[in-house]
């Protein structure tokens, strides 16, 4: 029974990672930027959800929508202000800027409300099911199904819709995309909006599921989600999902054997091993530069 429970635990944890990783990978896929501020957008989403529920008495879904909207706007603003100028600069310059933005958001929030944590109100009733002796909470089922639905939706958007095709074109060659009549700025903004709204949604789910939110809450999940995205093959949407789940399961299994202190180390070891055998992640195409 313990093992069924542990697998359930792993999948629940993994689906949170997956949810954040989806937005990460989406942005990366289009402009090849490791958007370190993604974790902070996630944090803002959690706080917007918190204040709208605890402060203004919103229900879960209105709060979720509001958080997604605010984060979408925030993502677009970050892109406009901090990244657009650097589109032709080295990628490492953009990365440093992203780190800068991420610190900026963290400490701005701390400046305005302090660093102490906040407890999420109980907006979503949580039932626990018994599943072959394992306890499954309705919330974790909801998170898993949400991330699957969102993954499918994203996959659909990117591969089947016009804006998705524009995104892929932009990701490959911005100038050529312009020549097709694609508005590159709008397309990139749209990408940030979608990716950031996913982060916002993840923030609300995280708050509901784990209760505790605080201004630095985005750092570790952000890093883990990044690892998950790389694990799955960065830029690949189903990869982020699988990467998140694998990461969640690895961490859980390691803890389950009593090595909880080695949990993060094990996650990184798995990541490195996978990269050594598949240098561009589980789903990544081994795109060696053609000579």
């Amino acid at each position, binding site marked *: 029974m313990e093992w069924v429970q542990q697998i359930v635990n792993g999948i629940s944890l993994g689906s949170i990672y997956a949810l954040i990783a989806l937005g990460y990978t989406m942005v990366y896929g289009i402009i090849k930027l490791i958007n370190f501020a993604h974790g902070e957008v996630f944090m803002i989403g959690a706080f917007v959800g918190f204040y709208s529920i605890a402060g203004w008495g919103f229900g879960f879904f209105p709060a979720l929508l509001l958080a997604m909207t605010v984060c979408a706007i925030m993502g677009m603003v970050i892109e406009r202000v901090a990244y657009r100028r650097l589109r032709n600069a080295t990628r490492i310059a953009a990365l440093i800027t992203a780190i800068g933005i991420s610190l900026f958001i963290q400490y701005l929030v701390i400046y305005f409300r302090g660093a102490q944590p906040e407890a999420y109100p109980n907006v979503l009733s949580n039932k626990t099911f018994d599943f072959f002796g394992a306890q499954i909470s309705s919330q974790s089922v909801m998170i898993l199904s949400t991330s699957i639905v969102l993954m499918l939706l994203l996959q659909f958007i990117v591969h089947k819709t016009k804006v998705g095709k524009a995104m892929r074109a932009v990701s490959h060659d911005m100038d050529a995309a312009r020549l097709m009549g694609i508005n590159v700025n709008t397309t990139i903004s749209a990408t940030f909006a979608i990716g950031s709204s996913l982060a916002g949604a993840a923030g609300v789910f995280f708050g509901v599921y784990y209760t505790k939110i605080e201004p630095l809450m985005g750092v570790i999940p952000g890093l883990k989600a990044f690892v998950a995205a790389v694990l799955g093959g960065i830029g690949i949407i189903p990869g982020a999902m699988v990467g998140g789940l694998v990461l969640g399961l690895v961490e859980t299994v390691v803890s389950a054997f009593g090595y909880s202190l080695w949990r993060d180390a094990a996650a*990184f070891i798995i990541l490195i091993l996978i990269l050594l055998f598949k240098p561009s992640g589980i789903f990544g195409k081994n795109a060696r530069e053609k000579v």
Partner: protein
Amino acid sequence: MKKIKGFWLFLVLSIIVYGTVQVLINAGILNNFYSNTLIFISINIILAVSLHLVIGITGQFSIGHAGFLAVGAYISAIVTMKLSLPFPIAILAGGLIAALAGLVVGIPTLRLRGDYLAIATLGFAEIIRIVFLNIDAVGGAAGMQVTKMTTWTYTFICLFITIAVITNFTKSRHGRACISIRENEIAADAMGINTTYYKVVAFAIGSFFAGIAGGLYAHNFYIIQPSQFGFLKSFDILIFVVLGGLGSLSGAVISAILLTVVSTFLQGYPETRMIIYSLVLVLVMLYRPQGLMGTREITDLFKRKSVKGGS
């Protein structure tokens, strides 16, 4: 001959800088706070310059430099505190073991590219940190108390050697080999450069000096704890290198000095410290994406502008 002269100039300048500071310290004009800040700045310069060799020169995107700092710090602390050996031996041991760690990390990962290399190095640094976290003999999370042994003299000697070695390495066929990897790995390979070898060499040298910095660090701050060597520390070092200008050693030095001073100054403004710091970071990158120095060196400013070719 010109080059040899440059070297002597560097030596003389260094001795002047060292001597002046030492005299000021002895005379009590530079109090403990300033001398300690100078030591801190020098340690940061060593870190920045060592990472500069890996990222700026060889073009390998490593964001796990704090891992090697940690190795140097812990090993040297063990050497002095547990084995009671002299401090210089500890520093050297810290550097050597860190270089060894660099080899262990570098050999498998350096075939990865770009962001994948970045995340792998970050992962290794975290693993190193977690290993120390789980060794009770070095205090685990609580850390290890270390007696202060770092002095301005030790620090300066290490700083001098670091800069001299990395400059000399860079300005030789070996350094050019590394730069050619940064510029175009496929072409470098086709020109007879053993790219794997040079990547690993650069990585190991970088790790060695990070380890040296670790030895100074451990013996300057009374206590070392795994939490001091997390990925945020690696980011700090990365920021020195990028802000200074990728590929510019003097840029790395200047930005290490600048950022350490800015950050120390801002200690007294706790509420807005990180906000200002991050704004500085973002603004510099937005308005000077190539970094403060670009790829140029400070010495270039004194040379006559190189002849422009063409037309």
